[in-house]
């Protein structure tokens, strides 16, 4: 066969070999077919651990009790017992190391998530105590009168 046939053929073959070699180097060992077969389980298995390593930010009210026993007892005896501390105070994260103090959301909008009146008597929302957010002491923060840890008590 003549040179002008062989040369481009060799180049093409070399290219294929190079790409295959690159694939062997670049694709990690754990990439392949796993538990759910080729259709659903074709992936890099070390990624599962990467997802498990995501930092937990919400730790639940039980952890708050260790330092804030008094507040915790007040809340769980009140109609707000089912509301987690972190819903209003924000995720605990590394607190008390970082941040030292959690920010407290005193915005009306936070209370109105549940207590804004909506005309849906048959829904679960209709069974909660409700106000018209734009009429009931508009502009005031709710916590200046209502104690959020125990809404049955007024703020002294």
């Amino acid at each position, binding site marked *: 066969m003549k040179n002008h046939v062989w040369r481009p053929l060799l180049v093409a073959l070399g290219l294929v070999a190079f790409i295959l070699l690159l694939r062997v180097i670049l694709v990690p060992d754990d990439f392949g077919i796993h*538990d*759910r077969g080729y259709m659903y389980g074709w992936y890099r298995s070390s990624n599962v651990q990467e997802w498990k390593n995501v930092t*937990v930010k919400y730790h639940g009210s039980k952890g708050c009790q260790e330092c804030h026993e008094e507040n915790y007892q007040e809340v769980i005896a009140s109609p707000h017992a089912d509301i987690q501390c972190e819903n209003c105070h924000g995720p605990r994260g590394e607190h008390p190391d970082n941040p030292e103090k959690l920010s407290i959301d005193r915005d009306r909008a936070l209370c109105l998530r549940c207590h804004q009146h909506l005309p849906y008597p048959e829904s679960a929302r209709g069974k909660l105590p409700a106000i018209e957010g734009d009429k009931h002491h508009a502009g005031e923060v709710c916590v200046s009168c209502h104690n959020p840890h125990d809404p049955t008590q007024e703020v002294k």
Partner: protein
Amino acid sequence: MKRRDFCKKSLLLAGGLVLPLSALELFNPARLLAERSVPGDSRWIFLVDTHKCTGCGFCVKACKLENEVPYDANVTRTWVERYVVTKDGNTHIDSPKGARDGFLTAQIDNNHAGMKTIPEDEISKAFFVPKLCNQCDNPPCVQVCPVGATYQTADGVSLVDRKWCIGCGYCIMGCPYGVRFFHPVHHVAEKCNFCYHRITQGLKSACVDACPFGARMIGNLRDPNDPVTQVIMTQRVNVLKEEYGTKPQVFYLGLTREVK
């Protein structure tokens, strides 16, 4: 060149090509038939009781903060929809900011079409429906991924490999429930994963913990004593868009035909 030479050389060439290909094992048909019955003792499932949802949106807030989804970007892994069905038979649906801040007005948020006021006496029923990834048994989003970046774990959760995703968006189009979106920071596909980092260490998903009304529950289908499994086995539960054949694993109590 003689015909004999040509045949000889093409055979040689073909043989030379085949050898390294098979040696590298690009494709092994035997492994494609990998057993469907997956080992392990968990299959994560979810139960939403729409009767209990008040639309407060604490679940959405907790989800965004727990999973580092940018708080002010209008994307979210879970969201709450409001359905207002009027007496004329129309259904009005909205979910402003995914209900991150709850529903603070009775007006329906129609985005660019503005806010729609619905007179109180025209409402025949209204309710809230939380939505999240259904962690389907046959996830269409996983099938369409061309690079193996999204996959289903042995315990039934679909995950996205952020290092592997090329951002083609096929999975976002492929999901019939619209739960996938582009992560504004990582620029890859993003989705609810039942808080995989929490459930695999014995915690509950952030939205489940944040819900004050018990409208959301996570459970393990392989555990017959699990409270969620008990409900699914003994009560009338429904799933979303069953006709798509995706076998969703998020079960709903109190769905009606208006819910899409």
